[in-house]
């Protein structure tokens, strides 16, 4: 049993890792086909895992609603929304399948233009997502307020830099001598240098982690040490 839980996954990780590493250096069409094949596998597995996700979602909300746990009303709404959305998709599939019997131009689908699912997406999901995103503006202001409080020489430097960059981004800044140039310099020189330094660390860390996974040194993702 332990053999199946540890050795087999480690062997699969090693083999897949080595093959995909070699694939990066091989431009031959067979190599590209192999990459496409593994990508297709990944997509297939992801869709199979979606069932797992849906199962978890339904189970956790049903349990909450059944136990009348605090905030169970939200679970009830989530379950109702889930059920209605699935029903809408299925109904539209049946509807288009029925219509396609007489009109060959109609494709059987659960979504698409004019479908209830597209209405759910355009009229509910999209605006709600937009509303969440719009809060970001206020959160940036509050986070900036905290970050720019002058508590130390570094914070003072941060505040001054922020003022220059902010002025450089607005029409008023264009009329202040030197501000657009200083703002552009701050963005393109010190900021880029810091970003690249972090980028080097990230790249090296990624390679080291990938090698650790390939050679079975890093096993935590399998639930081991």
């Amino acid at each position, binding site marked *: 049993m332990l053999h199946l839980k540890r050795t087999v996954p480690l062997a699969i990780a090693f083999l897949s890792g080595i093959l995909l*590493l070699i694939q*990066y*250096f*091989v*431009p*031959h*069409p*067979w190599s*590209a*086909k192999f990459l496409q094949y593994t990508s297709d596998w*990944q997509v297939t*597995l*992801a869709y199979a*895992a*979606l*069932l*797992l*996700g*849906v199962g*978890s*979602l339904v*189970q*956790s909300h049903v349990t909450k609603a059944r136990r009348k746990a*605090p*905030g169970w009303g*939200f679970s009830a709404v989530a379950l109702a929304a889930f059920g209605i959305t699935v029903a809408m998709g299925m109904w539209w599939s049946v509807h288009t399948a029925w219509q396609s019997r007489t009109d060959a131009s109609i494709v059987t689908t659960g979504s698409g233009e004019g479908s209830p699912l597209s209405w759910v997406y355009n009229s509910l*999901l999209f605006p*709600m*997502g937009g509303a*969440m*995103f719009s*809060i*970001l503006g206020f*959160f*940036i202001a509050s*986070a900036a307020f*905290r*970050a720019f409080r002058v508590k130390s020489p570094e914070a003072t430097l941060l505040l001054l830099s922020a003022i220059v960059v902010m002025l450089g981004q607005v029409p008023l800044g264009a009329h202040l001598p030197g501000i657009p140039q200083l703002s552009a310099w701050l963005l393109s020189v010190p900021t880029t240098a810091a970003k690249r330094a*972090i*980028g*080097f*660390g*990230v790249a*090296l*860390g*990624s*390679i*080291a*982690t*990938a*090698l*650790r*996974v390939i050679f079975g*040194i*890093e096993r*935590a*993702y399998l*639930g*081991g*040490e």
Partner: protein
Amino acid sequence: MIRVAAIFLLTAAALRAQSFEKLEVLDAPGDAGGAAWVIWKRLPAESDEEGAKRITYVVSVAKDATGDFEEVARFPATAKFMSDNTEAFGWSKKTADWHAVKVDAPGYEDGSAANFPVYAKVVALSAESEIASGTASGIARPNWLTASKFNVFVFIALLGGVMMFLIARARRNSEIFVRRIPGLDAMEEAIGRATEMGKPILFLNGLNDMSSISTIASTAILGQVAKRVATYDTQILVPCFDPVVMAVSQEVMREGFISAGRPDSYRPDSAFFVTSDQFGYVAAVDGIMMREKPAACFYMGYYYAESLLLAETGGTTGAIQIAGTDSVTQLPFFIASCDYTLLGEELYAASAYLSREPIQLGSLIAQDWGKLFVLAAIVIGTVLALFHVQTFVHMVATY
């Protein structure tokens, strides 16, 4: 005016007296097939820049010598040199004396592994005359190796070799110094605080799937956190963005509870799937934060625009917040909103740091050696570039 007319006449006369030298068709190196380079030496009339401006090249290709030649490129003699394509021709100064045009093999179909013959002709045109080359031929074939990526291979092999050496050394000597990472030291404190307050811990794995290195790193951290959570008998919540990440998180946590000797305390529903919609996920997690009021929030993995929405909401609940991400654009938001932030590579180091395993710590030191190598390369490259020596820069360039 007289000077221009003189150059014009001289170019026409010079062109009439010349012929193409060394026209060749070469297979494009390191490609999937179907492409070739047509190269030829610059005509003597191009030695003068004004003269070069008055010459236009026309390149035509066909699939056999007697077939219909189709025009594929037309450009002035001041453009398209071998030296513009260091990936294919290297960085020798001689490449500046040659023109080079990349052409598609006639009849090539994308994804085909067959060889395709390419026949090419070049015509040099000026206002008053034209000279045509003979026909050159070559084969466009798919290649098995990319020479231009050789430097990447060498770097990975070197880093891998150094890593193995340091791991072997770490096995013999487990006394390895690793600098303190305050964010990771604070994890213990955060879990202790949650235990004292009787409130749960919220752990997020980021918004990428399991194929992302940062997600692998975050699940490794989750394993270590789960062990401590089991020891302290605290509650942990792991809302997931991806179902595969959820399954891995459940397994990692289960093993963490088992290794802490408390398998009975593990609750499989601690890690649960929320949604794969970015802002739907944010809304759900923010809702959990506001209802459950966690004592500690861990944001590990890769984040996008939602980072600040999560961290600011977590901040309003009074939770101690520790973030770790390799998303450079989101780091400032986490730094502004969280108590501790693991910057980039510290996220990958977290698992080794928390587990204190000599083998893992050995691989951490290899990363530092890699950084030293990069630093040395930057200094050497900068110094050489100041003296117009570009060889080293080309050696480390990626294509």
